[in-house]
């Protein structure tokens, strides 16, 4: 308990004192993004373009509608944001945003996922200031929301979003404290080659905060955040035998039922498998992360006996 409180306090401290803080003065807004680059905005941005789900998410959460967003090709924009994004210009996929379209919408800020846009950084910067963000861990998410808030001229609202999120995590942790939790695995595709996520990934980190034990383990490359996980052999999965399995959506029908160890896993036999929505994969945005907490609460916490 005290450990959890200390952990959350530590996160807040890191966020407040991190070099990623910026400030506003009458010369405009200055920010340092996750590339270490400094952005200079003459005024708060009102026309953000989003290259990644996070950008759209945070813009909507802070009340500034984005002027252009990237999407998933055949699958379109993420479901949970779709109603609010109708009519917004599409930029193509997040790793290849259409620069001509981006230029034509005349944005004054681009909120992007760093690892996909870094290679085109110069060209995007020429169109509008680029806020490139790592969006992997909880700390990344908090910092990213704060930066976006400053860039969009709504720092107080961003801070409120962060505070509310952290309070909610903490209260859930306290409520769950002392109850039997178990091991959990977050997998994509349970079929032939399941991929399991490490502890630092946002959803699994949240699960860990709430007392669950992620079988994915620690990342071997903690400074970088990449890779996000690894392909787990079925024998290893069987040995780890998580109590609960969360599956990210896959387009293959019932792919996991083809897995030979599937019937033998404890989670399968006790019925503790749940499919989680797609935003678990890109959960750094304020709306998405609240929904992840909703899902965790609904699936894993309320089913615990009082």
């Amino acid at each position: 308990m005290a450990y959890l409180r200390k952990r959350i306090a530590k996160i807040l401290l890191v966020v407040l004192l991190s070099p990623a803080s910026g400030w506003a003065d009458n010369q405009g807004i200055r920010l340092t993004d996750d590339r270490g680059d400094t952005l200079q905005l003459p005024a708060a941005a009102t026309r953000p373009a989003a290259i990644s789900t996070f950008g759209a998410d945070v813009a909507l959460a802070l009340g500034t509608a984005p002027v252009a967003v990237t999407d998933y090709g055949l699958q379109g924009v993420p479901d949970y944001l779709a109603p609010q994004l109708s009519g917004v210009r599409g930029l193509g996929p997040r790793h290849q945003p259409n620069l001509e379209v981006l230029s034509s919408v005349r944005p004054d800020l681009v909120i992007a996922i760093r690892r996909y846009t870094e290679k085109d950084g110069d060209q995007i910067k020429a169109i509008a200031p680029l806020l490139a963000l790592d969006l992997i861990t909880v700390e990344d998410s908090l910092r990213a929301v704060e930066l976006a808030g400053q860039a969009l001229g709504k720092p107080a609202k961003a801070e409120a979003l962060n505070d509310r999120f952290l309070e909610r995590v903490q209260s859930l942790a306290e409520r769950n404290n002392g109850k039997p939790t178990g091991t959990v695995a977050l997998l994509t595709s349970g079929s032939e080659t399941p991929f399991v996520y490490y502890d630092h990934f946002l959803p699994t980190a949240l699960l860990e905060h709430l007392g669950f034990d992620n079988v994915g383990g620690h990342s071997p490359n903690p400074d970088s955040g990449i890779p996000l996980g690894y392909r787990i052999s079925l024998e290893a999965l069987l040995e780890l035998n998580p109590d609960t399995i969360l599956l990210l959506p896959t387009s293959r029908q019932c792919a996991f039922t083809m897995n030979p160890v599937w019937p033998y896993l404890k989670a399968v036999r006790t019925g503790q498998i749940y499919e989680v929505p797609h935003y678990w994969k890109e959960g750094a945005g304020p709306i998405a992360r609240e929904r992840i907490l909703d899902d965790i609460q609904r699936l894993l916490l309320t089913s615990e006996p009082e």
Partner: protein
Amino acid sequence: MTHPASTTSRAGQRGLRIPCTGPIARLLLAGGLSLVIVLVAGVQLGAIDLTWAQVWAGLTGDSSEHVQRVVFELRLPRTLTGVLIGIHFALSGWLLQLLSRNPLAEAGILGISAGASLVAVVAFIIGDWLVSSANPYNNTSFALQYLPLFAMAGGLVTALTVYFLGMRHGHLSPVKMTLTGAVIAGMLHALTTGALAFWGHAHTELVAQWLAGSLYGAEWQHLRTLLPWTLIGLAGIGLLVRPLEVMQLDDQHVRTLGLGLNRWRAFALLIATLLAASAVGVVGPVGFIGLLIPHISRRLAGANLPVQLVLCALLGAVLAVLADLLGRTLFSPYEVPVGVVSAVLGVPFFLYLLSRQP
């Protein structure tokens, strides 16, 4: 196919002869005109509609920032890069088909694309692990900056390996080189897919885009990187035209003419490799241009090597720019990479060509 008496270049003559007789001139004119047309289309058409006046204003620097950017920073360098890689791949394929005396040869058979791809994938992956502890801000930019150089080096090393393994009894055997190239390319491709599958989970989409051969994000810097190689390649080809004509005769004749066959072959191979590897380094592997264009130029130009050469360069550029144009306008804002479009366009045409052959 007409063979006017004056057009066959004689082996003993110096310099390049591009005779100006009727059919040839018309051919070259048509080629040049198509190039101009696609160039213009490439600058005008795209995801955003622009009028002629806007394009002109953009070129002369007289318009809004957005139009200026689209025309001058996005479309113009991209189209010109397309021209260059079209020339590179087409000429490289042409040389290789001549060298191996096989109409199905192209840069892929030397393993250049496969070698460059493997190095590119590895560079992407290693970029994660390299600098993570030192400066967390510097992870991938190191790999990305030098990616063209790495990829080109990978292609060159592979080609050299294939070349050396393709020697038989001390001189180059086209057959053995082809087979060795096929085996090595297959191996490298499997390794590339494996490496990407095993380590590349976080970068799959990025690498996939590179592996498809794409002009996305091409800027003036890419053009600057590529141009010296184009000039080197063209100069080399200029030197090679006469020896190539001689090499068209069979080996016995050639030896009696005392031409130092091996040395010229090696040189031609080097030029073909440099052309292909530099292009692959900048845009990734684009397969079909080098396979298809030499066929077309041979059909149109007959046995006349210099005309084949010029036509090859022109048509290669046209195909590359056209493929890229189609790729970025058909499903806007999504883009189909130039490698995929040229493959889709190329295959039916290729089959048609081959079906007409004896």
